[in-house]
């Protein structure tokens, strides 16, 4: 497989605290990777570094062979707009926008015409099974529905990489199963590379590869997900 994203000796320090230390990893195109670790292990910081939301103290991040460390903040924003979809534990939808408008949010500053924007957003909502809730605002949606809207938003620009930070952390088991199913479908059917940060082994079990972090460093890697206990949530579906 081709390398989509590669990090080389990545460090991130907040003052005297080294949140990420010497992380080198590779994510191939179409791969599903789970990063596990306890709270404070540095997995969320690593995801933010990979998303360009934080800048590394040292090391390099290469996307399709290009070092994104040279990009300024606006350059990183554009890079995210074109290549990366982000999903957060707290969904982070804009409360005043409808589901469809939230999905279309990354397209608002682009030259995409309103009608095309609407159609693309509706198609993504259809993909996550929420086209019937297009006009509803986040406050009118369940947690699981909100996360599916957030996933649809992450997909609106057809990214090659989706980065998800504890995507099921705020969901009940039923909603978690639906969201995991969506990630698996994205990865299997559409070839989108997915990297999920989680402390939930059931989530990690969906991934094709597992990376475990402790104290900012990778302590285990390349553990196949099948070595984990079978995820009961997935089995129920």
């Amino acid at each position, binding site marked *: 497989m081709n390398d989509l994203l590669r990090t080389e000796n990545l460090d991130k320090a907040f003052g005297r605290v080294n949140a990420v230390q010497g992380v080198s990893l590779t994510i191939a195109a179409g791969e599903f990777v789970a990063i596990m670790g306890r709270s404070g292990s540095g997995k969320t910081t690593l995801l*933010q570094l990979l998303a360009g939301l934080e800048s590394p103290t040292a090391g390099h991040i290469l996307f399709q062979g290009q070092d994104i460390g040279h990009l300024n903040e606006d350059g990183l924003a554009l890079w995210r707009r074109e290549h990366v979809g982000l999903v957060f534990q707290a969904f982070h939808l*804009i409360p*005043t926008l409808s589901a469809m408008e939230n999905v279309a949010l*990354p397209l608002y500053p682009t030259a995409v015409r309103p009608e095309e924007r609407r159609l693309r957003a509706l198609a993504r909502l259809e993909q996550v099974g929420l086209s019937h809730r297009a006009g509803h605002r986040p406050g009118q949606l369940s947690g699981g529905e909100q996360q599916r809207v957030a996933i649809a938003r992450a997909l609106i620009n057809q990214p090659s990489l989706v980065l998800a930070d504890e995507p099921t952390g705020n969901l009940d088991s039923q909603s978690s199963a639906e969201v995991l199913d969506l990630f698996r479908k994205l990865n299997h059917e559409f070839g989108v590379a997915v990297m999920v940060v989680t402390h939930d082994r059931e989530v990690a079990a969906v991934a094709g590869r597992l990376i475990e972090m402790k104290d900012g460093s990778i302590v285990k890697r390349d553990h196949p997900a099948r070595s984990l206990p079978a995820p009961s949530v997935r089995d129920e579906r």
Partner: protein
Amino acid sequence: MNPAYLLAELARRPGRTLSAILSVALGLALFVSLQAYAAGYREAARAPLAEIGADIAAQRQGDVPEAFQGIVFPHSTAPIHPDEIAAVRRLPGVETVGEVVLFWDFEPERFLVVLGLDPTSNIGPGRLRAAVTAGRFLATDEHGVAVADVTFAHQAGLGLGDTLPIAGQPFTLVGLVDTSRAGQVANANLYIPLADARALSAAAPNVRAVHDFRAGDANILFIKANQAQADSVITAVTDLLGEKAIVSSARSFSQVLGEAYRLVDRFGWLVGLAGLLLAVAALLRAMAANLWERRRDVGVMRAVGWRRREIVLQLTGEVLALALGGVLAGLALAVLVTLVLSQTHVTVPVPWELSPTPHFLPGGAQAMAVTINLPAQVDPVMALISLALALTCSAALGLGLAGRAAKIKPAEVLRSE
């Protein structure tokens, strides 16, 4: 800037939107209404003279007659000589000058206020030709004819064709005029040709006793001036007529209009401007609070690929839309307030000197006044100035606020809650 997102933000935060629009609207309405109020009073101050087509009335204080017998000049009207009149005509900014001779005629059986006027003049009491209720107005180059105020004629039992003596000279009544329709300045009982009034005055012993009245003299001038130069004309006329000059204008009328007008005229700009700036400050305070609440939203926008300038444009657009909404609502409110103001009456006192009657006669000391609806209206230039001011302030401060908001680090605000 995305209009759909902007409209969604404004429509779905109705409390914030309405309070921001209302604060701007109230400030702007205060600003524009105060200007309309002050402008209305300024216009009202022009009314007494405007009714006779003039901007300035010029007289010279004279001496009190030695005896109130026959023709005398009120002490507010000393002769103004032809060379002085010619000098006034030559002043820069003077468009037209109307001359009149006003005198009192004390006869044993009646008292008359008589005004000699040029019936061809478009300025001054010559305008009475539009107020004829019976008969006709004075014609050019005729003599020995008079037009009477209809109320006076009724009280004196005079009718058209009657002959009435003025200082022993017979005058035939050819018309009646309703002077109340032509203003309160230089009101008289009888109006006669200017040449006749001059001849009568020149021959009157009690005029000659205190005045050097020459052929071609007048004792009141009505001046139409270029508005832009009116102030300099007033100054120049005052200088020309000397220390005894009495020059009436909108400026002098406004000085007797009362404290409320003076306060508004002096501080209206300041209060209005302060109101407008407070409104913009309130809008920005609301927006600053709103942006603080929306830090997470801004973080989300950055995370999903919005560049800083795109966020700045979007947020500034919101501030501008609110300011524009406030300005439009404020202008509508100002129009409404001004409509109400324009239904109120304003009374402009006319100085005794401009329509003198002897104090010792019944009603002689009674003050004359012009009462009109306050001519207040929203000045389009003022509306545009306030629009530009509100939008410029909002844009500048909105850009500052949005610029700061766009610097939010998404990683800081998007950490799991």
